[in-house]
């Protein structure tokens, strides 16, 4: 029973983080057609900003959520407004744009990661925040992990309701469905796309803050999270936001179960699932 709870809660914690980063990537690809391989770099930026704020200024990571999220939103918004909007206008077709924007985001990956390496050096960093143990149904968990889980679920839910209930959320879903028609219906498509990209960066920033509370961080950490986000997005169906949310928790649970047997196999399991899924059902578990 205790082992079962360990595995499930551990899986939910990982899953919550995966869901956050996958939703961000899903917004950027599903709506904007940018397969942003620099997504993980925004996670890294969020994590390092939180570490710096905590270590040098003593600002609590939970306060950092409110600082890093919006700051990265602005960065993402501006990147889309300049770089990707220009590329989109120049591309002959949406397929050509998907290819060239993928390559441009490789450029962003190199730029962001190496600026971080210049600022923070290549060392592994970490800080301890609320690392006392909390007993939950007879199992011990460190407080920061439970708080991270709470925030990951809370942010995911808030975001889901924002998309389904708000006016802007409706515009985003319309733009994802059919950009040309949405434009005819009075949606300012360039603005919506830039907001989507910014929201993706915001989600990555939130995930980075939560990750820095639990794990050690380093400037090259981004790519692994990007890959996990891509796996989750494919698992949930390329472009489906709800699919990404569910897919994140599913992958987190799978990872937690595999880790229980052999921690070294978890990433291998992700890739095996990913490859089999692409071959058998490329539209994802929820796709049609």
């Amino acid at each position, binding site marked *: 029973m205790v082992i079962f709870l360990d595995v499930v809660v551990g899986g939910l914690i990982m899953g919550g983080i995966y869901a956050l980063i996958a939703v961000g990537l899903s917004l950027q690809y599903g709506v904007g057609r940018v397969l942003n391989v620099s997504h993980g770099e925004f996670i890294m930026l969020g994590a390092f900003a939180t570490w710096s704020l905590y270590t040098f200024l003593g600002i609590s990571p939970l306060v950092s959520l409110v600082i890093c999220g919006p700051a990265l939103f602005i960065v993402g918004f501006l990147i889309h407004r300049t770089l990707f909007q220009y590329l989109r206008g120049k591309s002959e077709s949406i397929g050509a744009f998907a290819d060239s924007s993928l390559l441009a985001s490789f450029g962003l990956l190199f730029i962001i990661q*190496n600026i971080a390496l210049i600022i923070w050096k290549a060392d592994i960093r970490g800080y301890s925040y609320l690392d006392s143990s909390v007993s939950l149904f007879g199992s011990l968990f460190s407080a920061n992990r439970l708080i991270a889980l709470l925030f990951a679920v809370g942010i995911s839910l808030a975001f889901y309701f924002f998309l389904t209930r708000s006016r802007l959320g409706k515009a985003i879903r319309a733009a994802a469905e059919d950009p040309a028609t949405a434009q005819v219906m009075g949606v300012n498509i360039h603005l919506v796309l830039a907001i989507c990209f910014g929201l993706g960066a915001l989600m990555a920033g939130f995930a980075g803050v939560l990750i820095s509370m639990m794990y050690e961080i380093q400037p090259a950490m981004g790519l692994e999270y990007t890959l996990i986000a891509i796996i989750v997005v494919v698992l949930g169906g390329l472009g489906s936001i709800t699919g990404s949310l569910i897919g994140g928790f599913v992958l987190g649970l799978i990872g937690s179960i595999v880790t229980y047997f052999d921690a070294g196999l978890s990433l291998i399991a992700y890739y095996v699932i990913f490859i089999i899924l692409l071959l058998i059902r490329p539209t994802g578990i929820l796709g049609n």
Partner: protein
Amino acid sequence: MDGVRVLSKRFFPLGLLCLFLLLLATMPLYAQPYLVILLTTVFMYVVLTLSWAIFSGPTRYISLASAAFFGVGVYLSAILGQALPLPLVIAFGGLVSFILALFIGLLTLRLRGMYFIIFTFGVSELIRHFMLWWETNFTGTVGRFVVAVDQTAVYYVMLVIFVMTLLTAHLMRRSKFGLALRSIGEQEEAALHIGINVTHLKAITFAISAFFMGAAGAIMATRWTYIDPSIAFNPLSSFMPVLMAIFGGTGRLYGPILGAAILAFLEEVLITKFTYYYMLLFGIILIVVILFLPNGLVGLFKRR
């Protein structure tokens, strides 16, 4: 007169190429050892980029599996290095990569566009993590030592692989084979309808391009002398050929060569002293090229 002009126009580049190759072949006789080592690295990148462009250039399927094929060559060199003579090791490196690529190529027939890109990347990451897990659990050590080979010999082997890749790329562009590949890139359904066996063609070409990557990996391993899964299957070996080919432009045969040579040379000069600044500059160059030079450096010379 016209005949002479046509002839000279045809043979001038060929003569220049021969002269250039002669210069490269005699290089170790008079050049500094450092230059020979530097040129070996440059040729490694040129081979990777050119062989990437053999498949991805005409078909427009962006493959991110180069690291897998390169790494397979590296590992075969570590495993077989003591048992077999060098030429056989290199041939094996190429052959196993060839078979792996044929297998991946046949698996991914249904995948297009973004799905193909992320699939190829997933495969090479899977192999890297699997090797890491295998080595720590079953071999006991993460890294392996490779039998070292004289630097000049490494240079000559890399030069031979380069010439072979160049010849293959040239012949493929000229043949019906290349024309069929380009038609897949233009409009795959149409290619299928005019009777091109799209499936076999893609898989074979993918495998041919992987052969050279595996061979290059097998010879590079002997220069590194120590390897582990993170070195052999470094994701950068997947990204770099794509970026170098885009930088040079895939429209012409010399595009990927030019792009790889310039960036590899720049890397060798800058990377030891200014690693982060080099990679930062690399990212900026990449974005500038995508924004303003969609046809790469080749686009600068080619009149529209």
